[in-house]
């Protein structure tokens, strides 16, 4: 089995610096998810680990070997691509057995391993079909099957579910989770679907512009984001940010206010908060309560979306900014009605402006 270490990893295409020095430690058997906006370098980083892209600088260790200069086939990794990349001229069986065929495995060995993979992925009945006769979800199974037969120490997934419809995506997500339990292999998974990230990951790596923003468990990142980017990236609907004035700093707490917000004392967890300056107050939509008699944030309802089990309110605050409130119940708030929102100061995040 294999732990993976990325040390000062960089990648440039000529003058374009795409990965700008990334350090990540991945334990053996861990499920790590890379998330980040489009173009931030997730795929590039994954392909560098696979050996499909050269490493411009830094070192990459898989197991106890530095593999910077090893070709993909000598790295002990398997990869599942967004487009599935199953070979159109081979049957499912031949596709799944491809790696074994290449390594010269006997027919008996191939048959046994393909049968086992097919059982795990419940695709025994598909083995003699051609890829053109498969649905998207079935193709994805074949791609995963091809990855698991060789029992590699490391699995790499690049947005494997993004071409599937929502229902199938959920099924496959759970299956990948189960697969990780069963195989116990190290898995690195790229996605920009935060539900996938939150549910699958032992550890999430948030990337932006080729740099790591934060690494931690899903709940770490959700409850203790290091910066505005991470705070805004995880969670749906995403976190509200208000620009506030810091009126007073005393010990571990700061008092903040603005035209819409009554003075509130918030714990300081990040540097850069000074009395008399500005700050960004982050409030998750789910933690805002319109029924709180001690509501401290004032505005009026601009829009209400009722989904039955959930209600999303867009409010225009007294200072002119917009705010999203998510209630876990059905409620009716007429447009234009005044609204006061309460929140638990411990659930608020204060960042330097």
């Amino acid at each position, binding site marked *: 089995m294999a732990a993976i270490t990325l040390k000062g990893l960089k990648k440039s295409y000529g003058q374009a610096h795409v990965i700008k020095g990334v350090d990540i430690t991945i334990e053996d058997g861990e499920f790590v998810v890379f998330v980040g906006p489009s173009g931030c370098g997730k795929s590039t980083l994954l392909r560098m680990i696979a050996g499909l892209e050269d490493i411009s600088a830094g070192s990459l260790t898989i197991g106890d070997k530095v593999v910077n200069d090893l070709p993909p*086939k000598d790295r002990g990794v*398997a990869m599942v691509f967004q487009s599935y990349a199953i070979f*159109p*001229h081979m049957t499912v069986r031949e596709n799944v057995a491809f790696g074994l065929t*290449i390594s010269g495995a006997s027919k008996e060995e191939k048959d046994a391993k393909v049968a086992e993979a097919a059982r795990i992925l419940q695709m025994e009945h598909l083995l003699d079909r051609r890829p053109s006769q498969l649905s998207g979800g079935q193709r994805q199974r074949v791609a995963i099957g091809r990855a698991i037969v060789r029992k590699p120490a490391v699995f790499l997934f690049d947005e494997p579910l993004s071409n599937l419809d929502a229902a199938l995506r959920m099924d496959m997500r759970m299956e990948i989770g189960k697969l990780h339990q069963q195989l116990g292999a190290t898995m690195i998974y790229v996605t920009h679907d935060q539900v996938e990230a939150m549910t699958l990951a032992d550890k999430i790596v948030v990337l932006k512009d080729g740099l790591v923003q934060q690494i931690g468990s899903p709940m770490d990142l959700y409850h203790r984001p290091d910066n505005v980017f991470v705070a805004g990236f995880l969670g749906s609907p995403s976190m509200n940010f208000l620009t506030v004035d810091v009126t007073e700093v005393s010990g571990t707490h700061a008092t903040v206010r603005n035209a819409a917000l009554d003075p509130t004392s918030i714990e300081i967890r990040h540097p850069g908060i000074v009395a008399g300056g500005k700050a960004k107050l982050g409030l998750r939509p789910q933690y805002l309560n319109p029924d709180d008699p001690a509501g401290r944030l004032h505005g009026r309802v601009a829009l209400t979306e009722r989904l039955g089990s959930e209600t999303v309110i867009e409010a225009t605050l007294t200072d002119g900014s917009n705010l999203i409130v998510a209630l876990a119940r059905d409620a009716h708030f007429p447009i234009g009605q005044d609204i006061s929102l309460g929140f638990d100061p411990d659930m608020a995040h204060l960042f330097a402006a």
Partner: protein
Amino acid sequence: MMQSNDNHGLRLFLRYLLLVLIAVMFAFPLVFMVMSSFKPDQQLLLDSGNVRAFLPVGDLSFNNYFEAFERAPIGVFIFNSVLVTVVTVVLSLFLCSTAGFAFTFMEWRGRKLAFTIILATLIVPFETIAIPLLLLASKMPWIGFDGLTWGWLNSYRVQIIPFIADGLTIYLFAQYFKDLPGELIEAARVEGASWWQIYRKIVMPLSGPVLATAAILKFLVMYNQYLWPLMVVQQEEYRPVMVGLQYFFQLNIAWGEVMAYLSLITIPVLAFYLYLQKAFIASLASTGVKG
């Protein structure tokens, strides 16, 4: 948009009419050739001014064929041409596809420059390099059954080797490979395949259409070789079909025999081409890479 049935039918009719006219235009010379090959010279010349030229009428016989065989060793010529053509096509498909593979999928120093140079050769007409090539061929060494010899003139190899690699075929392959989904190649690499295995097990099986195209183009070029064999082959035993045509253009041209000879060397090729075209379309439909 409204469109009446009549209008649609008329357009269909016109389209077919046009296609038929074009087909007829291409077919006429062939029909003329085949019909004439069965007619004695005198009648052939009389008929050639009117529609009878395209009809199997008058004094028909195989005489022209018998005489053509008397006049020239046609079997030898056809054998030579087929041998040279088939060997060149096979070697060319292999060499040019591996070259295209290296240009498309592999990273190496000077790749872009080398490809540019190969593309540049596309605009150099063969006539320009014929003389230097002749000089070169006349001095090349060869190791064969009789040990080391110098000079390639009067041989099969001099008709084959210069035509194995060519810019157009390499370009065709490189272009086709570029459109194959790159992730297929990457998946194979991650699965442990060597470059050679990727070429053989992934790329070639998906290359039916381009192989057929390249084969047809190369076949036509090779089967129709005239200038080069004229320059490098003086002995009858290595002479190809097009050069063999000279045997029929002596003092008085025997048109009937010319037509018989041309029919003999054209019809099999035409049949083969039509067959390949079918295979070509079938392979396009079956690879399913693009769908």
